[in-house]
C-alpha cells in the first residue's frame, strides 16, 4: 500500500504496521492530514484542526521507536476528539458560540490518557451545541454532512466524530453519549460506536450536559478498534467522584471466541413498530445471523422503555438547566456588556446560546420550578427506577438486549429542525441504556434497501458487561462483513 493510502486503515491495522516498523507515524499522520484537507470542505466534520502538531508528534514517536522504546498499542495513531472534551490550551467550544474562544487550562482525563498513550490529535470534532441534538444541525459552527450522502445529516450529537471516522479522516474519535449521542450517529454513518457503562470512563473534563447520564466512548471502523480504545480510556479516576472503582477487564481477549449458547433478547417494544422497513429488514436479518452462530434469540418485554424518551426529556433538561447556569459572562466565554450584572447575564446568554439549548434550559427550569417539581421531575425519577428494574428483569433472562439503533436511516438536512419532538424521537432506542446505566454498542449491519444508507444494530449489556458485549459485536461484525467503502470514497 502506498503511504498516501494509509488513511484507509483501521487503528489495529496501523498499530501492527507501526510495531513492525513497516510504516512511520509521521507518514500515517501526513496521509490523514491530506485526507482531511481533501474531504473537510465537503463534510465540515471538525471545529478546530491540529494536523501540523500531529505530524510533529508522529515524528517524535518514530524517533522513540527507532531508539528501541517499547510503545503502547495506540502510539502514533491519529485521533479526533469531540469538541466537548477539554484539551489543555486547545480551544474547546462544546459547539457553542458562548465558548468560541475558550481554551481549557486542563486536560480531560480521557484525553490525558490518550495523550500519554501517544495518540496524535488531528482535531476537535463538530457536535450539536452542548451535545444537545440528534443531527449535528444545532452546532454553532454549521452542520456536518453525512459522507454516505452529503444531503443527509450524520446524526448527533457526535456527528462530526462519526462522519470523520466513516470518511477515513481519522481511524478513531472519542464521542460522548447522554441519550445516544455516540450510537445514533455511528448508526447513521455506518461505523462502530460504544457507550460504556456509566462510571466506567472518567467524566473529568467533559463539558457537562446531564451529569447523571454523560459518558465518553470510542467511535471506530471496527469492533477491535473500539475495544482497543476502551482499554486505554477506562479506569477509575479519583477526579471523578462517580467513577467506578476497581480494575477493568481485558476487552480484547474475548474477541474471536464463539458466541454459541449466548442468549439475546429482542426488546419487544422497540423491535420494529413505526420504523423504516429497510431498517427492520436488516435488523431481522442480523437476528438470523445470531441464530446461525449458535446463539438464541427470544423476545423480551421491557414495558417502561416506551416511556424512556419522556423521562429523558424531563431529566436531561433539568440537569442541563442547572449545569449551564455557569455560562454567565463572568469567568470564561462570551460576555455581552450591559450596565448591571443581571442584564449582562441575560444579554450574554441570549446571544451565546442557540435555540435548542434555550429550549432545554427553559424546559428544565420549568420542570424544576415551584409547583411543578414533583409532578414532572419527581415522576421522571420514579420512572427511571422502573426502567432500571425492567432492565434488571430482562437481564435475568438473557445475556444481551438488541434493537435497531435508530428507527430510520440518515434523514435530510433541515427535515426535522422545525419540530423538536420529531427530532427527539430519533433517540427512542438509545435513551433507555443511559437511564438504566447499561452499556451499549452500535455496529453497522447493512444498508437499507430503499435508500442504500447504513443501518445500525444496537447491542446492550448490563452494567460492566462490555467484554461480553464486545465479544458478541465482534462475532456479528465478522459474519456481516459490512462494506463501508462508499463513505471512504466521499
Amino acid at each position, binding site marked *: 500500500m502506498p503511504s498516501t493510502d494509509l488513511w484507509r486503515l483501521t487503528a489495529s491495522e496501523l498499530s501492527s504496521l507501526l510495531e513492525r516498523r513497516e510504516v512511520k507515524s509521521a507518514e500515517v499522520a501526513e496521509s490523514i492530514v491530506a485526507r482531511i484537507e481533501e474531504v473537510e470542505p465537503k463534510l465540515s466534520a471538525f471545529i478546530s484542526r491540529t494536523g501540523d502538531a500531529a505530524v510533529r508528534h508522529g515524528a517524535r514517536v518514530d524517533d522513540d521507536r527507532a531508539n528501541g522504546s517499547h510503545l503502547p498499542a495506540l502510539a502514533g495513531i491519529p485521533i479526533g476528539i469531540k469538541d466537548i472534551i477539554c484539551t489543555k490550551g486547545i480551544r474547546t467550544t462544546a459547539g457553542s458560540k458562548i465558548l468560541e474562544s*475558550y*481554551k481549557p*487550562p486542563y486536560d480531560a482525563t480521557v484525553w490525558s490518557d490518550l495523550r500519554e498513550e501517544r495518540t496524535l490529535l488531528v482535531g476537535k470534532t463538530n457536535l450539536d451545541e452542548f451535545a444537545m441534538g440528534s443531527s449535528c444541525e444545532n452546532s454553532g459552527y454549521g452542520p456536518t454532512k453525512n459522507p454516505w450522502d452529503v444531503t443527509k445529516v450524520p446524526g448527533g450529537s457526535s456527528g462530526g466524530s462519526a462522519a470523520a471516522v466513516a470518511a477515513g479522516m481519522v481511524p478513531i474519535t472519542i464521542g460522548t453519549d447522554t441519550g445516544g449521542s455516540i450510537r445514533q450517529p455511528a448508526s447513521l454513518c455506518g461505523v462502530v460506536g460504544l457507550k460504556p457503562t*456509566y*462510571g466506567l470512563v472518567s467524566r473529568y473534563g467533559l463539558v457537562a450536559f446531564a451529569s*447523571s*447520564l454523560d459518558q465518553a466512548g470510542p467511535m471506530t471502523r471496527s469492533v477491535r478498534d473500539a475495544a482497543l480504545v476502551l482499554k486505554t480510556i477506562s479506569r477509575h479516576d*479519583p477526579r471523578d*467522584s*462517580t467513577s*467506578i472503582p476497581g480494575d477493568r477487564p481485558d476487552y480484547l481477549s474475548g474477541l474471536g471466541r464463539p458466541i454459541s449458547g449466548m442468549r439475546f433478547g429482542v426488546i419487544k417494544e422497540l423491535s420494529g413498530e413505526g420504523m423504516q422497513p429497510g431498517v427492520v429488514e436488516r435488523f431481522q436479518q442480523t437476528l438470523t445471523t445470531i441464530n446461525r452462530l449458535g446463539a438464541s434469540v427470544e423476545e423480551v418485554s421491557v414495558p417502561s422503555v416506551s*416511556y424512556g424518551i*419522556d423521562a429523558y*426529556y424531563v431529566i436531561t433538561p433539568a440537569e442541563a*438547566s442547572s449545569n449551564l*447556569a455557569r455560562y*454567565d*459572562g*463572568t*469567568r*470564561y*466565554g*462570551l*460576555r455581552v*456588556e*450591559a*450596565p*448591571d*450584572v*443581571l442584564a*449582562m*447575564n*441575560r444579554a450574554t*446568554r*441570549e446571544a451565546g*446560546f442557540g*435555540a435548542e439549548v434555550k*429550549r432545554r*434550559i*427553559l*424546559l428544565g*427550569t*420549568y420542570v424544576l*420550578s415551584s409547583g411543578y417539581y414533583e*409532578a*414532572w421531575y*419527581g*415522576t421522571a*425519577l*420514579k*420512572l*427511571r427506577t*422502573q426502567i*432500571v428494574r425492567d432492565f434488571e428483569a430482562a437481564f435475568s433472562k438473557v445475556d444481551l438486549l438488541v434493537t435497531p439503533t435508530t428507527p430510520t436511516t440518515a434523514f435530510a438536512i433541515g427535515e426535522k429542525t422545525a419540530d*423538536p*419532538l420529531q427530532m*427527539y424521537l430519533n433517540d427512542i432506542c438509545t435513551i433507555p441504556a443511559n*437511564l438504566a*446505566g447499561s452499556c451499549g454498542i452500535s455496529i453497522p449491519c447493512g444498508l437499507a434497501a430503499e435508500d442504500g444508507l447504513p443501518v445500525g444494530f444496537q447491542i446492550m449489556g448490563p*452494567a460492566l458487561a462490555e467484554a461480553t458485549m464486545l465479544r458478541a459485536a465482534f462475532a456479528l461484525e465478522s459474519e456481516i462483513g459490512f462494506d463501508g467503502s462508499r463513505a471512504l470514497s466521499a
Partner: protein
Amino acid sequence: MAISSEDVQHVARLARLELTDAEVDLFREQLSAVLERAQRIQSLPLADVPPTAHPVALKNVWRDDVVEPCDVTEAVLGNAPDRDGAFFRVPRILEDAE
C-alpha cells in the same frame, strides 16, 4: 398540557434568558408539544416506586485534603472576559440590581 407565554417568560427570567417576542411564541408552541407527550408519565402507577437520581449507587467519596501545586491562575484568568489583577471583573451588582 399547553403552557402560556407568561409561563415561558417566567422560566426565562428564572433561567436568566432574555427572549425576543418571536422566541417566546416559538418556545411556547414547541415546549407545549413536548410536555403534552411527556404528560402521559404522570398517569403511570409509580406512587410506590422510589426515585433514581443516579445510575450508580456510590456514596460520598472522600479523600485526604492534601495541598498540591496548582499553578493555573493565569490560564484561568486568561479566559475571563474582564479582569482586574487576579480578580474577575463584573458590572456593578449592588446598585440597580433587582
